[in-house]
């Protein structure tokens, strides 16, 4: 895959109102799903953090004998894609719940071997189950993953080698967060991913971005770490021998599969810093 070079001025047709370069460039695909050509500006991406009218899923209704809410979307292509996302998300949440239960069960068994009656802190985490919310969040995550930066990131840093506080982690869409908190997490995550944007011809524009509590992001040192470990660590392997369980990181695999095991080992506290 060839890297598309970022150009700060939006390519050949510079529109009068230019979106900030970092939001539109480095995207492999435009909003319609088609692969974008080099330097193509995409003004619709500018709106991605706003609630676009076409994305407004509040207009939903339930048909009496239908299987669920239908969005008032008149376009079959989009309707089917939403369908697909919805069923995928439902499968994911079912799996996540099952694994949480199993995890809870195994923890209880371990703790009950010592004490007799104490209900050791089985933290019953409330999950986000609203389909509308989950799909919106999934779309936001997809925007972030649908970037060259993300591709480069996951190639460079296998999941088992991620260092918390240094490497970006995809926000967990199943946890309860306020709308503001979630949107902020997504924003910070995407900002963090920009460190893996392909280099531009005119030097790296990225350093202009104010680092947000991320510590030093030394792509070079990370790079050298991963090159030596790439042979020994497989991408899909979440049981890396060298990594202690508690610092194992949660993230979705590149293909969109949900790494439940890693997710369950993360500390159950609120996500207030990007890690």
């Amino acid at each position: 895959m060839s890297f598309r070079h970022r150009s700060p001025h939006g390519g050949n047709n510079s529109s009068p109102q230019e979106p900030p370069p970092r939001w539109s460039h480095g995207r492999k695909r435009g909003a319609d799903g088609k692969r974008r050509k080099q330097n193509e500006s995409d003004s619709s991406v500018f709106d991605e953090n706003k609630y676009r009218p076409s994305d407004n899923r509040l207009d939903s209704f339930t048909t009496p004998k239908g299987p669920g809410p239908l969005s008032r979307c008149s376009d079959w292509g989009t309707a089917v894609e939403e369908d697909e996302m919805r069923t995928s998300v439902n499968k994911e949440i079912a799996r996540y719940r099952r694994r949480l239960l199993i995890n809870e069960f195994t923890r209880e068994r371990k703790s009950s071997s010592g004490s007799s009656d104490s209900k050791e802190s089985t933290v019953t985490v409330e999950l986000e189950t609203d389909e509308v919310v989950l799909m919106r969040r999934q779309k936001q995550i997809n925007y972030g993953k649908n970037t060259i930066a993300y591709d480069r990131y996951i190639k460079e840093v296998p999941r088992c080698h991620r260092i918390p506080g240094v490497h970006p982690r995809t926000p967990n869409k199943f946890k309860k967060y306020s709308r503001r908190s979630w949107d902020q997490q997504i924003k910070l995550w995407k900002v963090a991913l920009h460190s893996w944007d392909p280099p531009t011809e005119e030097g790296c524009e990225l350093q202009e971005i104010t680092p947000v509590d991320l510590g030093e992001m030394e792509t070079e040192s990370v790079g050298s770490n991963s090159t030596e470990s790439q042979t020994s660590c497989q991408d899909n392997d979440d049981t890396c021998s060298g990594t202690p369980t508690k610092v194992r990181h949660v993230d979705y695999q590149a293909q969109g599969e949900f790494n439940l095991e890693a997710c369950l080992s993360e500390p159950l506290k609120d996500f207030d810093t990007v890690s």
Partner: protein
Amino acid sequence: MGETGKEEYKIQSFDSETQKLLKTALKDPGNVDLEKVANIIVDQSLKDCVFSKEAGRICYTIIQAESKQVGQSIFRRSLLNRLQQEYKDREDLRARSLQAWICYVTFICNIFDYLRVNNMPMMALVNPVYDCLFRLAQPDSLRKEEEVDCLVLQLHRIGEQLEKMNSQRMDELFSLLRDGFLLQEGLSSLSQLLLLEIIEFRAADWKMTDAAQKYYYSEVTD
């Protein structure tokens, strides 16, 4: 893809350049204008009933190939949107060419049959398919043998699935069919036979009973 491929996807009716394009779409979808391919397939399915009967297959394969190769669904999206366009203008289509209308219904039902989303039929197509079948159950269509034949064929193929997705509409459709069978004037005896058979078929839970098989499909011996 040798002769078997051609047979399987029934693409013999295309000219050789188009055949080549389709074969590339099946093997290397990322390097093909998939929107163009979708339009070619829809256009042909409106002309060639043999093709439209099984076109779902080639569409399914292209969708899978595209998803695997580039993780996208441009072909599916183009296909569905084109299908939707034709659906919106179906009355005009029927007025222009009965044959094209019949081909269209055959095609959309075949797509519904083959293309699934996470192992579920496409929700978005359920009502449009019903709408098409309801149209075929209208008096003016019942008077045309080819339309009755089309209606009955589709119900044989996808009736059971369709009913699962929305049983109420299926009940309504069969109400019309019963009425048509009993009261419709100008119904040919073949059409009557077809309607009776499908009514029985559904009553037998979308299965062919031995008795029905014998009655409708066996040679009559004097």
